[in-house]
């Protein structure tokens, strides 16, 4: 049996012929297994959706109650037989509810990891290493120049800046699902106990995190705050809001951006970021290569990102490796920026 007999990469996502389902399909399908709630992986309009309870909840928050005809929740580690193949979900450490999906038939194990990271995150279950024969990996930061900093070091940079510029408002651009809550949680870990302000677009997701028992301390919406009261405060907002008229309500705003992309200066400057914070929810180069090696997989499929470098690296190590030309996965931040533009100027 070949891996392709179980899973076939198609331009709209990986398809399991014997099980009759797709993983993270980018167009509506009859049966979808969803790794996590980010909009490039979790789309509305499928027939049946199988995902963790958190991912289903997040999809409901984003797309409304009728985002799929039927849904089914699955717990981490619980095996489920679908037409002769066995699937199970395992923590991916990416955002709340994120999972890698193991698909197994006749002893051949394939793991579709979705997006993942192998470093600590106080807002979600830690990444679980799942031994397998074929490992399907992302490569968002698949270049050796991407090695993320110790996240608490970056949080320290932000707090130092807040102390040095107490009359300014620090606006931290962060993806509204996952990154924003992680930044808040890490600020709390670092001992910051002031009220943290939120852009309206982050309200629902953040409330959901809190309802799942993730302590985020005192939070308030910017909407209700007076301009002078925002001096010396930290506000979390979608990255696109930092380029917007919305920032005019803040006293001398200092724009920060929490993203793995901030590692590269040209990229940070392009966005006009004044304080780049290298904090990522994706594995960096070391994380990707260490994880690939640790799974024991002899074959690597790369879904999206900097495929060339990662495929080259794997090939050099004697692994079978190939890029999957899947259209539509990508950078969550860019996705979110597009969505904001389409819906107007992000006033929320």
């Amino acid at each position, binding site marked *: 049996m070949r891996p392709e007999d179980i899973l076939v990469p198609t331009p709209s996502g990986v398809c399991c012929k014997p099980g009759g389902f797709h993983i993270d399909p980018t167009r509506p399908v009859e049966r979808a297994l969803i790794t996590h709630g980010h909009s490039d992986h979790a789309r509305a309009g499928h027939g049946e959706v199988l995902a963790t309870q958190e991912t289903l909840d997040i999809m409901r928050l984003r797309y409304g109650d009728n985002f799929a005809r039927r849904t089914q929740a699955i717990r981490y580690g619980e095996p489920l037989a679908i037409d002769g193949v066995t699937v199970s979900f395992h923590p991916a450490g990416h955002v709340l509810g994120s999972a890698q999906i193991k698909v197994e038939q006749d002893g051949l194990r394939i793991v579709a990891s979705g997006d993942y990271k192998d470093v600590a995150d106080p807002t979600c279950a830690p990444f679980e290493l799942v031994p397998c024969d074929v490992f399907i990996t992302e490569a968002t930061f698949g270049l050796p120049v991407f090695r993320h900093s110790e996240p608490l070091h970056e949080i320290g940079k932000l707090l130092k*800046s807040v102390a040095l510029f107490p009359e300014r408002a620090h606006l931290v651009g962060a993806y509204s699902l996952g990154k924003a809550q992680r930044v808040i949680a890490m600020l709390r870990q670092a001992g910051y106990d002031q009220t943290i302000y939120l852009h309206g677009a982050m309200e629902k997701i953040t409330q959901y995190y809190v309802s799942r028992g993730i302590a985020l301390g005192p939070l308030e919406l910017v909407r209700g705050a007076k301009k002078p009261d925002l001096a010396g405060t930290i506000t979390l907002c979608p990255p696109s809001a930092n380029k917007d008229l919305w920032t005019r309500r803040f006293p001398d705003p200092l724009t920060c951006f929490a993203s793995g992309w901030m590692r590269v200066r040209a990229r940070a400057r392009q966005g006009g970021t004044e304080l780049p914070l290298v904090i990522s929810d994706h594995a960096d180069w070391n994380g990707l290569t260490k994880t690939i090696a640790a799974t024991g997989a002899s074959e690597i499929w790369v879904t999206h990102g900097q495929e060339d470098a990662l495929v080259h690296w794997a090939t050099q190590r004697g692994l079978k490796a190939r890029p999957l030309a899947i259209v539509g996965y990508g950078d969550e931040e860019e996705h979110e920026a597009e969505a904001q533009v389409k819906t107007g100027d992000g006033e929320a």
Partner: protein
Amino acid sequence: MNRFADLLDRLAYEPARNNKLRLMTDYFRRTEDPERGYALAALTSALSFQHAKAGMIRALIAERADPVLFELSYDYVGDLSETVALMWPADPNHRPNAIPTLSDVVETLSTLGKAQLPAQLARWLDALDETGRWALLKLVTGGLRVGVSARLAKTAAAALGDKDPNEVEIVWPGLAPPYLDLFAWLEGRADAPANRDPAPFRPAMLAHAVDEPDLAALDPQDFVAEWKWDGTRIQAVSGIGEDGQHVARLYSRTGEDISKSFPELLDVLRIPAAIDGELLILRDGRVQSFNVLQQRLNRKAVTAKLIADFPAHIRAYDLLMLDGQDLRDRPFAERRDKLADFIERLNTPRIDLSALVLFSTWPELIAARADPAQTGAGEDAEAVEGVMLKRRDAAYVPGRPKGLWWKWKRDPMIVDAVLMYAQRGHGKRSSFYSDYTFGVWNAANELVPVGKAYFGFTDEELKQIDRFVRRNTVDRFGPVREVVHDGDTGLVLEVAFEGLQRSSRHKSGLAMRFPRINRLRWDKPPREADRLDTLETMLQRIERGRGGQPAAANASLPKPH
């Protein structure tokens, strides 16, 4: 090194001058000697050591990284030092004895032989993190560009002791890294360091702009006028050192030592004195255009041929010191008399006295400014960019004091151009599209960009343009928006500028100097905007002679290192 690296990192992203100052002052306050002194030296380009070449950095990474991964990475990052800093394979299990400090790096580099540099650099890179490696590589390759001038760094140091930056400038020439005596003084632990430099820079006095209506409030009897020459402002100083040696130096307006670039001028500064003047190129007694001067300023190597082809000349405006006597608190009229005597004593063709423009009423001066050729400037009238008004009783006050010196420029050049791209500004303007690229029509009836402007509009106009940009965006590239610009729809900007230069970087083949938005021409359809021919004609006029060119306040001078 880490704290210095973090500072550079912040400075590189921080657009606002005041915030840069805050960051630097905070660093100087928290960092001990001699580390902060070497940082100040690095920021003021006062460090001298052999710079590492790009080839050496490439060789270091080639020994450590897969060539395919390096090329893919370099291609993505676009900067060699940064690529190497980011992908340097520091061994997480290798514990270096200590992270190198900036002082370690500077002190080691000043004595290290060329052959030992690669191995030493590799050891440092092993011990540093990404930001530290980036700062180290920028430092050793001489590419430390974080948008901080020497003046700004000194201003930040001065703030440490609530001192005026000019007080630091006064003692600066006698100081050397790591500036222990400077910091001791700034922190109130010692007296001001004595300036033992026999030929120090004295902070320059600058003028405020004035315009015709302003003159009514001034009494012509109180002022003298002279031409404002379109060269670059300098200070020429000479003195006798403690060892009896004669020292002569040439400084830029900001105090940068540019002596090496103009050896022929140093030779004639025989009498101990400090002259404030304009650096010009004179051929056969005629003042050449600023473009000609720029050709000399841009040249790194000073050859005999360069000196012969571009003979440098000082037109003297003021005398700050003579024979060891400080004249700066004397009235201008008195300094001017002493200057005239001094130029006569010096008796060299390379230095002459700036002529006065005679007038007794404002209308006379207005007439002179309108026609310098007929009122004394003669054949050099094209090199006059306006008149300077100086109070007869004014002391020489560093900085830009109110009411003593006025500059009154000739009219700038003006064209109508069409807005093509807009970019968000920085700091307070970061939510507005406030940086504008504009173009004029070429022969093929396409708009070609000719410049970029950030200034000249009111806050209200900024809001109007911002609204126009948001409603008329046709494309986006990162922070840049392309706006609609065809013959019938678009925004015409009346752009004033100070000069034109040929430029291979622009599709139009030319670039404007100091453009600013003069007026918004909402009334004008884009097709009636100016054509490239118009600018080409202006440029040819400049190249033939002069065309109302400006002073070179912002022109780049050769670096001393």
